[in-house]
């Protein structure tokens, strides 16, 4: 706690992740461009977007596996360019890479040998509760068991931030349920911030209280799920001259509008939370998280929504 980076003068310790203008350019173009946001510590955060949206590139930048082309990225106030950041996070890649010829005990020993804050008891507990033989070779384990060992390795590291890339993708429903329970329990017990990437939101919806949405390498939405949802309304009604009624379009930001025949369905958002839409010949429905997400994913040119909690302070504001 005496570590000055942990509680900086500007309160940087309150932020698990802080990205400013983060970008990564590959030969074929920008995989991640001008991404700025922050995630408060202690949250369970979903990182959502279609395939190729830049989720893995972002996680790569945060885990020092990808070198960003532009911008800065800090985890708990430590820039990712500093190797000291390595002990702050744990990362579970999509294919959960583990040495196949290592036994479970060897794998845990590896964690112990390479991480100064290793918690052997926690790691052993996670493995034991899955009823996995310590002497079994990793190569002989089932997908769920392997994921459990990978979880044990990740939690044994005692990370402040746990990043997972498609953690549940290759698991059967039973293992998925069991491991998400384990993940939430461990995260809650140690106050770990979690970032989970997925292209399937329902998989994460119940677990997360913070949302980051990427499409085409750009940040489309960031903020508390509690704050993101009430700002949106799903409006259906009759079109005027084949388009959205003018007074509705003037009162709010239209994220997405679909017209079929004389009927329109629009996802709109009001800039001030709680503001009411004008009454008119249309019906309003509060949208589900997935409706909002799909709206943003389909309408690539909709203005991004980044709530105050997720917006990094600019230097002007900080001054």
């Amino acid at each position: 706690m005496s570590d000055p980076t942990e509680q900086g003068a500007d309160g940087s310790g309150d932020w698990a992740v802080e990205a400013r203008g983060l970008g990564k350019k590959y030969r074929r173009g920008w995989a991640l461009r001008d991404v700025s946001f922050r995630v408060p510590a202690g949250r369970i955060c979903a990182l959502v977007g279609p395939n190729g949206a830049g989720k893995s590139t972002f996680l790569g930048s945060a885990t020092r596996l990808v070198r960003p082309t532009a911008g800065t990225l800090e985890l708990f106030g430590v820039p990712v360019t500093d190797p000291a950041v390595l002990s702050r996070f744990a990362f579970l890649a999509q294919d959960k890479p583990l040495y196949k010829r290592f036994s479970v005990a060897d794998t845990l020993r590896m964690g112990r040998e390479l991480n100064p804050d290793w918690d052997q008891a926690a790691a052993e507990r996670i493995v034991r509760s899955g009823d996995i033989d310590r002497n079994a070779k990793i190569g002989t384990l089932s997908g769920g068991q392997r994921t459990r060992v990978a979880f044990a390795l990740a939690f044994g590291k005692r990370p402040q931030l746990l990043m997972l890339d498609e953690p549940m993708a290759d698991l059967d429903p039973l293992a998925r349920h069991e491991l998400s329970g384990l993940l939430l329990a461990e995260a809650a017990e140690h106050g770990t911030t979690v970032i989970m990437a997925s292209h399937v939101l329902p998989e994460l919806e119940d677990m997360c209280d913070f949302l980051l949405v990427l499409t085409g390498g750009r940040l489309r939405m960031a903020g508390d799920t509690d704050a993101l949802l009430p700002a949106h309304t799903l409006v259906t009604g009759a079109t005027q001259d084949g388009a959205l009624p003018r007074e509705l379009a003037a009162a709010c930001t239209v994220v997405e509008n679909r017209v079929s025949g004389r009927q329109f369905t629009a996802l709109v958002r009001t800039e001030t939370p709680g503001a009411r839409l004008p009454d008119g010949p249309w019906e309003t429905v509060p949208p589900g998280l997935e409706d909002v997400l799909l709206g943003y994913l389909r309408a690539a040119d909709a203005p991004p929504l980044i709530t105050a909690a997720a917006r990094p302070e600019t230097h002007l504001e900080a001054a």
Partner: protein
Amino acid sequence: MSALTVTRKTADASARTGGGLLHGLPWLVWRRNRTAFLLLAAVTVVVCAYCLYHRAGVLDFVAKYANDSRYAEKFDEAYKPVFDKLYALSLLPPLLGLFLGAPLIAGEQEHGTVRLITTQSVARTRWISATVLLPLLVVLVCTTLMSLAFTALWSPADRLVNYGDWLGGTIFDITGPVPVAMALLLTSCGIAVGMLIRRVVPAMVVSLVISVGTSVAWGWLRVHLTSPRTRTGPASGDFPAIPDSAINHDQWLGTSDGHLLGYGTCVDAKKEAACLADKDIVHKIIEFFTRDQMPVMQWRGTAVLLTLTVLVVAFIVQWTRRRPL
């Protein structure tokens, strides 16, 4: 009190990390390459034992007869099978490059474990240094032992083995410092190639090509490591004689204005004397290497190989420092 705490802390730490001599990265490198290291150690033990076992017989032979090319045929009858087997030692450096070097990092990249290992609390530079240098250290120790054992077997009978030819056969490459340097170079080349190709099997194929290329280049370099001794005689006579133990390298015909012509220039001519006179050839020159030049040549060659090794290893470390694997 504080001493007690310290003791308890150390005890806790050792209990926590469990048994074994190795900890941290060295443990990981050992655990990852256990099979290869044990196999290499077994080969080392077998080769050393075999060499030392036959050394007694070789010493007896030399004591009974002499270390002199006159007895080479007799020696060959008795010991040719032994040395023929040991010439296989020249295959060790390419094999190390292929089976230890090439998969070392490529295997991690192919199976994705490089993302596991570089996200533990150990900086990438430290990881790559341990991953590359510790296997090279094992190679250094094992090949040094094997080279010492074979050199101990060969040197008492250096005029007898392979009829005293230490240059043309494989003896030059498997005695003294040469096999050690060659093994280090080919292993580090294998590691670098694997790192760049990121696939085990293609990396092994390329390592094989590199081994063949190195062997061709080395064959050329070997006789250029020092200048051969020369003897010059008149064109009218035969080529001058060289010492018994020397190795004939090349023969030339010298003209009066100092040019060298291939020794076959006048072989086909009907009248050699006329041909020689016609081409203004006045000298017959022979180039040869003597046994005392061997250490100089070996150490110079070793210096070249080790310099290349250092460059390759520096390249590997620098490459991983500059960009993630």
